[in-house]
């Protein structure tokens, strides 16, 4: 049964890891703005979009 003690210890350790991750997320301001990042992620990087535009132009020509 003493294996349970080890298991509990391990599970607590993992859980503490997640708790620390959560606390870090709050501290680094990830909960300050819950909307803008959802929009920001959809913006194309400038270079990529230029490439894509060219591609689509080429496509149109073809």
């Amino acid at each position, binding site marked *: 049964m003493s294996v*349970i003690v080890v298991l509990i210890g391990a599970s*607590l350790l993992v*859980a503490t890891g997640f708790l620390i991750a959560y606390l870090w997320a709050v501290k680094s301001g990830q909960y300050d703005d819950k*909307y803008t990042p959802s*929009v920001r992620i959809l913006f194309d990087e400038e270079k990529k979009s230029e490439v894509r535009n060219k591609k689509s132009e080429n496509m149109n020509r073809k």
Partner: protein
Amino acid sequence: MEQLEIIERKTDTKFYCFHCGDECPDDIIHIDEKIFCCNGCKTVYEILNGSNLCNYYSIDQNPGITRKHHIKRNYDFLNDADLKLKLIDYTDGKRTQITFDIPQMHCSSCIWILENLYKLNAGIISSKVNFLQKKIFISYSEETTSLKKIVELLDSIGYEPQLNLDNHKEENIKSLYKNLYYKIGIAGFCFGNIMLLSFPEYLSIDVTGHDELKKIFAYLNIILALPVFFYSASGYFISAWKGLKKKFVNIDVPLALGIAVLFFRSIIDIVFMHGAGYLDSLAGLVFFLLTGKLFQNKTYETLNFERNYKSYFPIAVTIQNGKNETTIPVEKLKIGDRLIIRNNELVPADSILIKGNAHIDYGFVTGESMPINRVNGEMIYAGGKQIGSAIEVETIKEVSQSYLTQLWNNKAFRKEQEHEQESRITSFANTVSKYFTAIVLLLAVIAALIWYNNMTLAFNAFTAVLIVACPCALALSTPFALGNTLRIFGRNKFYLKNTFIIEKLAAINSIVFDKTGTITENNSSSVVFTGDELNESEKVLVKSAVRNSTHPLSKAVFNFINSKITKNIDLYDEQTGKGIYAVIDGNEIKLGSKIFVNRAPKQFDDEYSTKVFLSINGAAKGYFNITNKYRNGLSETISELEHNYELALLSGDNEGEKEKLRNFFGADNELHFRQSPHNKLDFILQLQKNGKKVLMIGDGLNDAGALKQSDVGISISDNTNNFSPACDGILDSQSFSLLKDFIKFSTLSMRIIFSSFILSLVYNLIGLGFAFQGTLSPLIAAILMPLSSISAVVFTTVLTNVLAKRQGLI
């Protein structure tokens, strides 16, 4: 894609601006096959196009902000070192960080362009947007650019920042929020783990032979409970202590008592009696309570309930310095300075007119709807807005000592802190908790006395009563019921500062309305023409004549006449305060006051209503009667509220519409006219002295004192991002007709809290049954406590939603 869109739109013969999406007038401005409504919009397009930033137009359709009404401002004052220090967040001499409020932000394109500012100005190191708060955080290099250049850049692309000197309060709220998140995270973590470790107890697993294991679990629980007790729950102890120090039992007192008893009883149980303790109940309780707090603390980030006059006044003014014009921060304004006030600018301090045609709109200060003319040497009060050409004034008072701003020296504004305290005292939960705590303590003593011959059992019974009677259901039903009500109101465009306001709103018995802008609509008036009917060509003449005038009355007449063509004017003369004289195609047109038009009218004339007389070629045609338009649903609102509340009207305007208003308000309610901001404040104070709980509904700065003094002050706003003085709640003008429903619903939510309180008492009674017998096992506590908490939450949330649906609020 955009090209297609434009072609499609072209076919329905209407043109829309590529930049802002507004309908374009006849004369179209072209560039790159794109159409613009004005040169301003075109310029912004050119700036963006020049830096390859046309992505802006592909993220959202016509994302731009129209530049038609844009007034170019001089930002020289931003070079002032003192002022700059007040505006920026941080600087090390090379790199500076600053936060701007940008209310114009409205779509994804805005976020994109504002985060790509570095492409427009190489000195900008980074810019980050918080869309919900409509803020942008910019860090820039002092060597390559300056604050002034950045503000000018933002202005040039349509995002003029709202420069404001007092917006540092928000930081506190933010850190409070963060703390709450930490506390909930830790409480949740510990709650989960303690429950896991308590599982053998829940399932009554036989652990004989594994005493070691049981001990380890129990001690682990204690370790996990420590951060919950000392950190997560700390707020309740602090608040309870603060309350007790002021000889006042708030809801946190019985809560803190319950939490403390749970903790110490559990430790004694585990250490001395080899029991399991109630630590799972403790962690669960704290976790639920904190969740309730988070739910209750819903704030409207874009709204600002604490604005004072400084938010409206310009932070800089143009002064005449010898022959040069310079801009200085308004704080440095001295008595005797010569100011230049341009079209649509506010006069920041009481002054005397030196030069120019002053045409001052006091709508915001006094509530008078029509601009007033002033001649040289006359006084202009601070807060007046010049309409028309630039004027020159000399200040005679300091900004803070001016007529309007003096209102802020009133004690109503200084008592803010006490006010907050007071709001806690009056809440339902606090009122109940006073008696609740006393009764619980009494019961605990009785329980201990019953078992006086058995010390252990007496101790068990005593603590069990305190644990069971912990008013967690009451403490949870209030935040959830009121938090939900706050959200329901918010969905209907009625935004409250916090949940305490709902309780206060439920308790009011007297309602005071402001007139202009509150029960009348802003910027819209109803026009009636009385006299000989005008034929088509006469209509064209009149419309052409008023076209060039900026006077609100001219604009009202212009909008009233529905003829499409206008003609060129051969001769035009607008005399301030009198009227317009225009010659078109040889026809003489006179529009204006009775004397100016020079014809005694045949019709009955009362001096207060606003009339514009018309004569064409010397022949009197009649007059346009221009009156305020009342908000939709006003009469229903008043007639419903009349039954239960004492109503009153305070207007800064003249008695012109008294008769009309009587029809709305009935014979019993008080109507007061020509009320100064101070009169309004005093009126509220008088009502309160007579024991009334007053709800004040206003809009302008002139109502600020009354809004502050009243028990609940609600300001009405056409654009919730813009003007609203310090108040408890902001009501979008579209939702005015729902006002009666809001008030009714706030009383309903208080009733819901009350019923939920009764429900929680039932749980307490069941628990007390166990407690008195000294048989409250950890298992029963672990079931009973979360059950009562969750049922209180479900009960209040469901009931508020059901009732809101029945009221038509969702």
